[in-house]
């Protein structure tokens, strides 16, 4: 047996950003001790900080007609009626309070006429999005981070990688983890555990997220026996940078599509959107645009580095410049990237863009108290399913994290107040230690980096924007094959051994990949971000349902459950309205 360090706490939170930090505040508010662990660095990890602009809350400042009911309706229409309406109802009513609290935590929302400005983003009936210029995420992270620091009861552990949840006596009793700095094994015992690990965007070759977004939380929950839901719905952002590789996946190029009416071309110079949506062309909805670009790329008409061309150079330079001055304050920075530094001059040339994996709508199934199917396990943020349905309304991510993070923190705290610490059976710990450390003693096999790269390509081509039965079966077979490949890491040392941690992340990624592929196979229709070439239409008669999955006897057990529809049914919304998002 390896040496280990044991720590005890009331509430343990995995993940330190929007949802995790908000949960920590709420648990600590109840006078409880909290340990918050992240495999990165608190306030500087995950994707919260990458959020560009919008944080929705129906305050009605910009337009008094807006209210939580309208926000509810927009969210359900966007999510194509398979959102959990009970949760969305609560979310839209609580979002204003959660968002106003952020001002107390130190964020300075951009103002207009003495009130917080609210921008209009696609899919919303009225302007609703609070923002801090064009860098909302980083201000959001900073405010939450400084608020958490005010609570002496919250202990933050950076560079700690959770390897799995501990099941004991029918409940979750904490987590096993590795201190990445020195490679020591940690046993973190908790009365209640919260998963706030965000999405799994890094499963896809081109993504707008970070190498940290490996979907660990989904795998932890799945292995412990919790139900996940809506895993077939990852969302692509259509026009992200494809080249140079340094900035591949970053969404900045969208700026010229929105603000300069940039046009898309395939490698033959054809403005291909004419074939897909002649009415709206490049300004069509995200899903139509992503599918069109993907089809061009797949048919061999893509640009040299795996994308298509986006161009605004047909405009005179002074028009481009005046718009850059107006919209971006004269800076050629696209969301933190100075494109001129990369040799890109959009007044003279087209840029290569491609759809990038952006967000996971699905996740761990929770109730309106953030409670999962398992005793002692709660979850919040992008890691959970329910609010987004089949497609997230633009602007709902940040306020969604605050609201579901609040639920998880509040109710996990109440649970922890009632419960005692669970026992950790010695053999359970030894088994996990063997799994984790045996990789370091393996001398044959290949690097996890190789398998991860193959998985990322497979997910992008076979389980991405356009899906069909044969390809999904092929993907599942390939994932099973990848799981059998022997993994070896170059360095046996435990200190900050990134490849070793990657090998553990890889097992999570393979499971999450299979969860997505199997859920996508189950849903024999197209809805929201899920498009099946073999079932291209939405089918409200049979599919106002959620696909749920859990581990049973070591296999993925699929089931479909009716969507929670309490207020708004599709037939109550006119076709015209549905097309308009």
């Amino acid at each position, binding site marked *: 047996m390896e040496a280990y360090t044991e720590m005890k706490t009331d509430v343990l939170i995995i993940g330190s950003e929007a949802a995790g930090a908000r949960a920590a505040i709420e648990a600590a508010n109840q006078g409880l001790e909290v340990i918050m662990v992240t495999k*990165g*660095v*608190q306030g*500087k*990890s*995950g994707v919260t*900080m*990458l959020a560009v602009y919008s944080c929705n809350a129906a305050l009605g400042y910009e337009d008094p007609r807006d209210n939580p009911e309208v926000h509810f309706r927009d969210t359900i229409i966007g999510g194509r009626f398979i959102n959990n309406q009970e949760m969305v109802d609560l979310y839209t009513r609580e979002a204003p309070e959660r968002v106003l609290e952020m001002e107390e935590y130190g964020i300075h929302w951009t103002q207009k006429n003495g009130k917080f400005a609210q921008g209009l983003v696609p899919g919303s009936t009225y302007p609703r999005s609070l923002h801090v210029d064009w*860098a909302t*995420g*980083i201000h959001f992270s900073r405010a939450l*981070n400084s608020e958490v*620091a005010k609570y002496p009861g919250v202990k*933050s552990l*950076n*560079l700690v990688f959770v390897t799995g949840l501990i099941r004991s006596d029918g409940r979750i009793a904490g987590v096993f983890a590795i201190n990445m*700095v*020195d490679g020591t094994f940690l046993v973190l015992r908790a009365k209640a555990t919260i998963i706030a690990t965000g999405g799994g965007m890094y499963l896809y070759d081109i993504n707008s997220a*970070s*190498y*940290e977004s490996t979907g660990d939380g989904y795998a932890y929950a799945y292995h412990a026996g919790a139900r996940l839901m809506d895993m077939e719905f990852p969302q692509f952002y259509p026009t992200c940078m494809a*080249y*140079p*590789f*340094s*900035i591949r996946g*970053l969404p900045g190029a969208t700026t010229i599509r929105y603000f300069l009416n940039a046009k898309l071309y395939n490698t033959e110079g054809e403005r291909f959107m004419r074939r897909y949506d002649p009415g709206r062309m490049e300004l069509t909805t995200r899903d139509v645009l992503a599918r069109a670009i993907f089809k061009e790329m797949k048919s061999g008409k893509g640009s*040299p*580095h795996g994308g298509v061309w986006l161009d605004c150079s047909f405009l005179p330079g002074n028009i481009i410049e005046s718009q850059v001055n107006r919209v971006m304050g004269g800076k050629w920075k696209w*969301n*933190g*990237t*100075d494109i001129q*530094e*990369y*040799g*890109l001059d959009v007044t003279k040339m087209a840029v290569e863009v491609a759809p990038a994996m952006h967000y996971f709508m699905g996740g761990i199934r929770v109730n309106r108290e953030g409670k999962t199917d398992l005793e002692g396990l709660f979850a919040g943020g992008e890691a959970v399913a329910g609010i987004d349905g089949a497609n997230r309304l633009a602007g709902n991510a940040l306020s969604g994290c605050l609201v579901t993070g609040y639920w998880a923190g509040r109710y996990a705290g109440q649970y922890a107040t009632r419960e005692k610490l669970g026992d950790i059976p010695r053999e359970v710990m030894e088994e996990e230690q063997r799994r984790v450390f045996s990789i370091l003693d393996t001398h044959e096999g290949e*690097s996890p*980096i190789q398998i991860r*790269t193959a998985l990322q390509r497979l997910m992008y081509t076979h389980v991405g924007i356009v899906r069909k039965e044969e390809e999904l079966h092929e993907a599942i077979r390939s994932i099973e094959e990848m799981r059998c490949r022997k993994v070896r*890491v*170059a*360095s046996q*040392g*435990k*200190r*900050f*051994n*990134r*490849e070793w941690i990657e090998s553990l992340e890889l097992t999570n990624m393979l499971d999450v990949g299979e969860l997505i592929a199997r859920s996508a196979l189950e849903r024999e229709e197209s809805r929201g971000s899920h498009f099946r070439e073999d079932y291209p239409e939405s089918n409200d008669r049979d599919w106002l349902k959620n696909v749920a999955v859990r581990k049973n006897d070591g296999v993925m057990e699929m089931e479909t459950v009716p969507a929670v529809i309490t207020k708004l049914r599709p037939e109550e919304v006119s076709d015209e309205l549905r097309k308009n998002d």
Partner: protein
Amino acid sequence: MNSGRTIKVQVERFNPDQDPKPFLQSYELNWEEGMNVLRLLTRIYEEVDHTLGFMGPCRIGFCGLCRVNVNGKNVMACQKVIKEKDEEIFLKPVSGRPVIRDLAVQLDEK
């Protein structure tokens, strides 16, 4: 994109668990258009040497975790684009912080 040109990189490496003191290691990679230092490190880690230690999750100049000393200057690796004229790149951990491994350094604990 690839002119057949290569780029030479020297990295100061140090694993406090096993190395008595820091040492220099050289790498040579194909030149790539618009390559920033973070991409360079990622390519070394993925293609050449899986033991290299560094951080840098955000890629857009926000998190600051990729801060590194490039040719004598502390910069964010994701914001430093390598130019054609940069014949040789010399990378050290950012000064004044304890090294975790190679270019990954300990940050202030809050």
